[in-house]
């Protein structure tokens, strides 16, 4: 049974080849914990192709030739009521939440928007970095680009609207904030978020079919501030293949 007082769930159709189990309509760690618990409880029915957790919903893509929507609905409702394994849920590791310590450099051109963010929020740049590195962030979902983690939630005072004019090219591996979210751009891409730092960690490796994305929904990510020299050393070690970003797991 769902937790007492939990909002009722709803199943909506995303065309004829996907169903979405909705727990609510807002960004909320409590809803997200239920999403992850449902993901883990859903059996691997033949015909399911993708299971996509988001902030507050779980979408199952399926082959309508192999699986009837009615049958999938029954399983989704059962999974929605699955007990959560812990108050935090998000059990990506046998002993609980999978945790990461991701190094970031906020110096100079690694964090081009740090000064502006400090000005806009009326805080010192050091304080912004201290908050970014001061607590673990929950990975709510991976999307926008392969391996792109949406994480949160930032304290109220650090929530800024997106840039009015998005950059045409955000450097790859930039750590950025917008609204209540923080994220890491795995690839160079256009983007409107505020860039606070850069990590040497490689977030996506298409040649690793077992675990192409470093992070997964439900993970907890702590940022660790590093000097530019350490950033350069790690970046070289990672791009040369000497060092695997998976070692940032704790």
């Amino acid at each position, binding site marked *: 049974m769902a937790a007492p007082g939990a909002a009722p769930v709803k199943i909506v159709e995303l*065309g004829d080849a996907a169903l979405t189990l909705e727990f609510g309509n807002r960004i909320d760690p409590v809803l997200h914990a239920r999403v992850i618990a449902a993901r883990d409880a859903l059996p691997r029915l033949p015909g399911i192709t993708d299971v996509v957790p*988001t902030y507050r919903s779980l979408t199952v893509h399926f082959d309508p030739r192999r699986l009837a929507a009615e049958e999938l609905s029954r399983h989704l409702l059962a999974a929605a009521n699955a007990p959560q394994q812990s108050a935090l849920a998000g059990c990506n590791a046998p002993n609980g939440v999978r945790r990461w310590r991701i190094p970031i450099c906020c110096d100079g051109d690694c964090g081009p928007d740090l000064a502006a963010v400090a000005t806009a929020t009326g805080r010192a740049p050091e304080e912004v970095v201290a908050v970014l590195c001061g607590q673990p962030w929950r990975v709510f979902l991976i999307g926008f680009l392969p391996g792109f983690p949406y994480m949160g939630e930032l304290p109220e005072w650090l929530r800024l609207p997106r840039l009015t004019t998005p950059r045409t090219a955000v450097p790859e591996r930039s750590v950025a904030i917008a609204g209540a979210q923080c994220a890491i751009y795995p690839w160079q891409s256009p983007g409107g978020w505020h860039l606070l730092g850069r990590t040497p960690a490689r977030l996506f490796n298409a040649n690793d079919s077992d675990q192409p994305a470093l992070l997964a929904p439900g993970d907890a990510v702590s940022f660790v501030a590093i000097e530019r020299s350490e950033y350069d050393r790690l970046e070289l070690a990672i791009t040369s293949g000497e060092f695997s970003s998976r070692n940032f797991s704790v």
Partner: protein
Amino acid sequence: MSGALEVVACPMPISIQDLGRPGYRHLGVPLSGALDGLSLQLLNALAGNAVDAAVLEMRLVGPTLRAGTAVRVALAHATGSIERGGESKEMQSLPPWQTATLQAGDCLRIGQVSGGAAYLAVSGGFAVPMVLGSRSFYARAGIGASLGVGTKLPVTAQAPEGDERAVLPAPTFDNEDPLRVMPGPQAGHFTAAAFATLYGNSYRVGRAADRMGLRLEGPLLQHDPLRGADIASDAVTPGAIQVPGDGQPIVLLADGQTVGGYAKIATVISADLPRLGRLLPGDELRFAPVDAAAARAVRQATDAWLAAQIAAIRALPPAGGVDLLALYSQNLVDGVIHAH
């Protein structure tokens, strides 16, 4: 034996596609795959391949390719011209939906193609490396093989012995019927008037149209003022019709991202995605609502149509039957084929 088809000229982007890369959408990796999966399957059957073999997808204008080895080829939604190598320099037209064999040194020139997606299949399929279970190219993350002038596309199979050619009575793909949609998943974010507008008007494909999606131009779709255009991001899929705050719908295609933050008024059913994939800027389209049961019936009818088309593939007699080939290409002997 392996060989290659070398890209000699390439005026518009081309890419290798198969039926896509399912299983990684929770990691932000789009499905990708052919915009028109129906033509891909039919063309592969014609070329003697598994229906999900990798083919070359082209938009607007096709490339010129030079064979480094003997290879059997076929085109969908495009006509090619084969320039024989060696001394003869003989030219031969290659109509859509029939196979021909290129010998080493021959060039295949593909000019303007019809519709938003045309395909070239080779017997055995293009042998670019599999990445995450698929050979489909996804440009934004550089997954798969990027193609350009000078690229040598690997081909696995040698052309079959002899000169036997296969042909299909040119299938009819395009029709003016509305694209069928299932309402939602955020139907509650729109007024009843918005649905009446969506179903009662035609929309035009705007200039912003690529493998990610089509921006549509037409009457604005109004959000329920209490709910608005923005949602806490949830999953999307090819065919989903997002409506941003400006009220102009965007239909996602194969390379569309995996999640989105705009309310979705409706979703094009899977059987109609190939028609969506063939649209070009300036094309007009309409939408009509169906429920899940009707979508299932359309899916079954489409699968049956594909099976019937594959069953209609026929061998052509060797050269000398040129007149017959011409008749086939003009679709004048259609009835003969069906009479079997």
